[in-house]
């Protein structure tokens, strides 16, 4: 299952439209979308406006791949569940957000294991394919912090 989430209540129809179009040409795929307050109603995937915390965590746990806005909440949640994630940053010019923090965060996240960045919605299909391949190869965010960080923290604690 692929879980699509706009991360909050804020509409992000550009992501939802693109994923509905993707679902339309991949009829064998199970896709569940959390769409928030967007106007667009998907026709080719299951969707809900909002989800409780437990429901949200269950959807991520059940998903093979998460496709989301580039919010750190979504990225961290996918990471702790060991799920690969494709992010599409919300942009000011489409009225999706008030500043370009998501664009900047996405630029920094690009290249992290388990995280694929789609700069525009047209890049989503290839990023989805790449993230799935990475997930299948076990290249996902680990369940604990990186060893170097843990070692440095441990050295400080034991000092």
């Amino acid at each position, binding site marked *: 299952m692929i879980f699509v989430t706009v991360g909050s209540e804020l509409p992000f129809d550009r992501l939802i439209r693109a994923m509905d179009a993707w679902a339309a040409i991949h009829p064998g795929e199970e896709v569940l979308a959390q769409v928030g307050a967007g106007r667009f109603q998907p026709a080719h995937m299951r969707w809900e406006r909002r989800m409780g915390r437990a429901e949200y965590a269950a959807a991520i746990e059940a998903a093979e791949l998460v496709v989301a806005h580039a919010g750190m*909440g979504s990225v961290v949640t996918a*990471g*702790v569940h060991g799920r690969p994630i494709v992010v599409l940053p919300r942009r000011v010019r489409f009225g999706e957000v008030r500043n370009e*923090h998501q664009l*900047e965060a996405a630029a*920094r996240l690009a290249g992290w294991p388990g995280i694929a960045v789609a700069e525009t919605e047209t890049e989503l299909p290839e990023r989805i394919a790449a993230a799935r391949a990475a997930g299948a190869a076990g290249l996902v*965010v680990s369940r604990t912090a990186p060893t170097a960080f*843990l070692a*440095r923290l*441990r050295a400080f604690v034991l000092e």
Partner: protein
Amino acid sequence: MVATSAGGHWVQMRRILPAFEGCDLVYAGVGPTLDADLAPARYHRIRNVSRTDPFGFFVIVWQLARIMRRERPDVVVTTGAAPGLMALAIGKLLAGSRTVWIDSIANTERLSLSGRLARPVADARLTQWEHLSRPGGPQFWGAVL
């Protein structure tokens, strides 16, 4: 001791637990009980304070004073937020603890308010974003992700 509020802060704290392997580890958190898989470690429930809860400030000071006198932690580590900041301050004051502030990975553009306030009470103050580290300011040791 790790002292951390709930949600994303707690999730990030869990990712650093391997750093404390072999230590006598005690937890403080705002939830009713400790995660089942971390039990039977000692757990202290503290008030989930925020800026909009001035009365809670007195409650958590009293709670943490009791906890720190009893536990006397050598080190207190937090991944935030306000309750973690209080734990660093009171641990340092009453138990002479060495303290570590780890700012949430969610703060990509600026250190959190609690992280900025932690400056005088954190022996190590860490940001998870390299571009936010400054000489004499927050340090970057890496991210928990």
